[in-house]
C-alpha cells in the first residue's frame, strides 16, 4: 500500500512537470561547462576555507564555553549558559548581519582581522561554538567521574587532568557529533551572501546566484548545489561510520 502511494506520487510529478522547461532553465550543458574551473578553484575553495576557519574558531570558543559551563565558579557557568541559549536561539543569518554591521558600528575604527575571511570565521564560529560547547560538555561528562578522581589523587591539577586524562577520552565520544556540526557549518557558510564580498571571495551560493542572474538561467545554482553534495554526502557517510564505531566501542 505504502509503495502504491509512493509510486503514484512519483508518477504524477514526473508526468505533470514540464521537463523541457526545467532542463532549459537548470541543465544547460554549455553554460555549466563555462562555470569551470572557477566554481571549483574559487567558489568551492572559499566555501571550504570559510567552513574550516569557522569550525576552528568555533571549536576553540566551544571548548572554552564547555569548560566554563562545567566550572565550579558560578558566574562562569551562568555566562556560558547565557551564551549558549542566545546563540542557539538566534538565526545564523541574524548573527552574520550583526557581525557585518553592528561590530564596526559599535567599535568605530576597528577592523575585524582577516577582512571577509575574519568576519565569516567570527560569524560561523560564534554560532558553531554554542552547539559545540554542548557537545563537548556532554563528551566530558560521559567520562566516568573516577577518572578525574584517579588523576587528582595522583597529584594532577584539575587543568592538567582535563588535558591529559579527560579530554583525550571525551574526544572519541564527540568526534561524530562534531563532524555533523562540520556538515551544518558547510551549508551555513552560504550566509556569506549577506556580507557583501569581492569577486574572489565568493563562495558556492553567491557564485551560483551571481552567474544565474548574469545569464538569466539557473544552471549555475544546480551546479553549485551538486558541489555542496560532493562534500556533504561523503562527510555524512564518515559520520555514520564513526557513530557505528563509537557504538561498537561501548
Amino acid at each position, binding site marked *: 500500500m505504502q509503495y502504491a502511494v509512493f509510486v503514484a506520487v512519483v508518477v504524477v510529478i514526473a508526468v505533470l512537470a514540464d521537463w523541457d522547461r526545467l532542463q532549459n532553465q537548470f541543465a544547460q550543458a554549455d553554460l555549466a561547462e563555462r562555470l569551470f574551473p572557477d566554481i571549483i578553484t574559487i567558489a568551492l575553495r572559499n566555501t571550504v576555507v570559510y567552513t574550516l576557519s569557522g569550525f576552528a574558531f568555533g571549536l576553540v570558543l566551544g571548548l572554552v564555553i564547555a569548560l566554563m559551563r562545567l566550572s565550579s565558579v558560578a558566574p562562569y557557568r551562568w555566562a556560558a549558559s547565557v551564551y549558549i541559549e542566545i546563540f542557539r536561539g538566534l538565526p545564523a543569518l541574524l548573527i552574520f548581519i550583526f557581525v557585518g554591521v553592528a561590530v564596526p558600528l559599535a567599535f568605530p575604527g576597528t577592523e575585524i582581522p582577516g577582512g571577509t575571511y575574519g568576519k565569516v570565521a567570527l560569524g560561523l564560529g560564534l554560532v558553531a561554538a554554542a552547539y559545540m560547547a554542548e557537545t563537548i560538555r556532554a563528551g566530558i561528562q560521559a567520562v*566516568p*567521574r*573516577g*577518572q578525574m*578522581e*584517579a*588523576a*587528582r*589523587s*595522583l*597529584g*594532577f*591539577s584539575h587543568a*592538567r587532568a582535563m588535558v*591529559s*586524562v579527560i579530554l*583525550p*577520552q571525551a574526544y*572519541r565520544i564527540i568526534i561524530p557529533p562534531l563532524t555533523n556540526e562540520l556538515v551544518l557549518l558547510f551549508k551555513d557558510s552560504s550566509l556569506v551572501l549577506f556580507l557583501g564580498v569581492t569577486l574572489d571571495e565568493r563562495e558556492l551560493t553567491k557564485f551560483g546566484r551571481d552567474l544565474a542572474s548574469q545569464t538569466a538561467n539557473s544552471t549555475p545554482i544546480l551546479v553549485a548545489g551538486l558541489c555542496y553534495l560532493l562534500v556533504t554526502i561523503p562527510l555524512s557517510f564518515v559520520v555514520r561510520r564513526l557513530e557505528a564505531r563509537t557504538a561498537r566501542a561501548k
Partner: protein
Amino acid sequence: MPTPYEIEIRGLHKSFGDNEVLRGIDLEVATGEVVCVIGPSGSGKSTLLRCVNLLEEPTRGQVFVGGTEVTDLDVDIDAVRRRIGMVFQQFNLFPHVTVTENLTLPQRRVLGRAKGHAAKVARENLERVGLADKADAYPAQLSGGQQQRVAIARALAMGPEVMLFDEPTSALDPELVGDVLAVMRMLAAEGMTMMVVTHEMSFAREVADRVVFMDEGRIVEQGPAAQVVGDPRHERTRNFLTRILDPAAADPPGPEEAP
C-alpha cells in the same frame, strides 16, 4: 613539627546536605602501620578515607598527612597528594593508554620525570605486582584483578609515603581477590603505611596492625585485629561480623555506597 603519625585525623565531620556521614572522627595512623577500617555500608568508612586526600572536603575538623595539614585552605593539595597513593574499588585505570603509559603519564606530567626514568620506574613497579608481561596491554584487555594490581603499581610509581585502599577487592570476582591481597600483603611487609577500607576479614586479621570498626559515622571500637575481629566488645561490631563472616546466617549486607 615532627609527629610519629603519618596520618592524623582530628574531630572530622562531613555532611552531604542534611546527611551527616562523619560525626566526629579522631584517628591516627603511625608510620609503617597498617590500619583496616571495617563497618557496614553507609557507615562513612569510604568517606573517611576520601577525606584523607581531600577527594571529599571535610565539613569540619583537621587532617594531617606527614605533618602537613591537608585541610589547611592554603595547602598545595596537588603536592600533598603526590605523597598519598590511592587505590579505588573501580580501579580507575586510564582506558585510552597502555598499562605502561598508565604508570608513566602521571610520573611525567606530575613529577616531571624524564621519559627514560619514568619507564624504568614503571617497569620496576609492574614487576613488583607481577605484571611485567602486560606492559603493552590496554586496561580493557586485563582481568579485574590484573587491573587492580596495575592501579596499585601506578600509585607506587609515584613513590608515595602512604597508601589508601578504598575497598580494593570489592569489585573483583572471588577467585581474583587473592592476587590483589598478596600484593597488599607484600607492601605491608615492606613497611608501607596503609589505610585500608575493606570487607576482607581474613586480610584484616592477618595483616592489619589495628582494626577500626565504624558505624553511623563514628568509630565504635578499635584495637588489634585479633581483638576487634576475634573478640569484639560491642554489640554492633558483633552483629556486623556475624553477618559478614556468615552471610547465610542473616540478611546479606547491602551493596557498599557507590563511589
